[in-house]
């Protein structure tokens, strides 16, 4: 029964995606929607990403410093560990999970409300490909803008680590910068950005699927929103493992 449900949803998801990627009726209107979504899904997430990244960078630095007590560990390793944690995992995967909560629930509840208030039916009756018009701009906006959020998260996270490290005296600015530059592999950034693009697609498409197929009333929209966050997060974690194996092996 569980398997039947799972395969049913996977099949329906791909059918929806085939509608989403059908030829747009009017590119100009889709572009207008794309700009709206950039603001709604991207720019409106800048604040939360900056705040969380700054605190996470700070916490990673303090925890690493706590673990590296003793003379055998050079202090610059604190910066090196913070850098690698932020670049490899935090700014891509953790930020994606945070966005799955913020953006995913917003997408699912928006589309779910449009579904139960017959706005999606209104689009269909006009002859508009509702899936394409409503979902494609969201996917495009997230895939385009989430790498910007990831880069911002890296910058703010590392800055947060430096600030707390120097303020608490666990590391000097020179040691921190030395640690950041020590054996820096630029592929880490490419790896993080590739993951971000895949995760952006997962968040928007999975959340859209649950919102677009909502039925009933407010309770069902709430349930769809919860499912969107849960399943987006699970799929992100699965793909994190797959991409890590593929890109870092």
């Amino acid at each position: 029964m569980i398997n039947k449900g799972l395969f049913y949803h996977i099949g329906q998801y791909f059918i929806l995606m085939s509608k989403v990627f059908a030829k747009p009726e009017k590119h100009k209107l889709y572009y207008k929607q794309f700009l709206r979504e950039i603001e709604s899904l991207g720019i409106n997430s800048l604040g939360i990403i900056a705040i969380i990244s700054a605190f996470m960078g700070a916490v990673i630095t303090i925890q690493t410093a706590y673990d590296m007590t003793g003379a055998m560990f050079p202090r610059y390793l604190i910066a090196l560990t913070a850098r690698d944690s932020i670049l490899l995992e935090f700014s891509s995967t953790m930020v994606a999970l945070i966005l799955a909560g913020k953006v995913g629930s917003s997408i699912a509840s928006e589309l779910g409300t449009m579904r139960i208030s017959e706005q999606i039916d209104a689009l269909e009756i006009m002859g508009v490909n509702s899936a394409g018009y409503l979902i494609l701009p969201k996917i495009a906006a997230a895939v385009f803008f989430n790498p910007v959020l990831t880069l911002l998260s890296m910058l703010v996270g590392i800055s947060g680590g430096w600030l707390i490290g120097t303020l608490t005296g666990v590391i000097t600015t020179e040691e921190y910068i030395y640690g950041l530059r020590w054996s820096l592999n630029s592929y880490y950034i490419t790896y993080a950005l590739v993951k971000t693009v895949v995760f952006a697609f997962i968040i928007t498409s999975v959340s859209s699927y649950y919102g677009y197929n909502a039925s009933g009333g407010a309770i069902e929209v709430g349930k769809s929103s919860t499912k969107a966050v849960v399943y987006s997060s699970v799929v992100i974690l699965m793909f994190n493992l797959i991409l890590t194996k593929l890109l870092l092996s």
Partner: protein
Amino acid sequence: MIELQNIVKSFADRVVIDDITVKFEEGKTNLIIGQSGSGKTVLLKCIVGLFDIDSGHIFYGTDDFSNMDFMAKKEIRKQIGMVFQGGALFDSHTVQENVMFPLDMFTNMSIRQRIERVNFCLDRVRLEKVGKLYPSELSGGMKKRVSIARAIALNPKYLFCDEPNSGLDPQTSIVIDNLIKEITEEYNMTTIINTHDMNSVMEIGDMVVFIYQGKKIWEGTKDDIFHVDNKYLNDFVFASPLSKRIRKLANK
């Protein structure tokens, strides 16, 4: 003209529309009436293609809508306007953007022409100076009128209204009913209205179809409806004490 031939629609094992055959004439307001749960909305959604039918045929003029491919259906849909029960206005768009939406999507009109058309449609439904407002700032009656304005923006040949006066006070209901009737006659549209409001039937019902548990029980004009000897129809039409008294007076 829209013609339904032997329409059947079921969900799982439950037959919701059972072998309905009926013809809706153009230039007339055609009403589908029946109790809540009788299948009116499902029938309307089948006619516009939101639900696929199990068997039967739906003709728009001479075109068999039920056997068309996706693109052909899309072309027919551009000739359809629909007024939903709750208005179904786009929350994130202003009134002007809502009415302009079909024009933006399907025409190459200049922005000036589109604004002129939007203003014309809003004037036609007697709404002025609301273009910049959002749907959440409108009353129920105003939402319905905006919905009608959006439905007629592309000069449709077919107009569908699902419970157009549900949730409205009797005076506003009459305004909406008369507006739909006027527009239908003015543009010679084929209009189909779902309702269980007997006031609407008496005001604008050129042709009335009564369905009960998914079956067509009766069709005729609003003048015939008081003189029909059918238990289901009479139970529906004369449900209230007031209508029962009117019937007694009419029969005296």
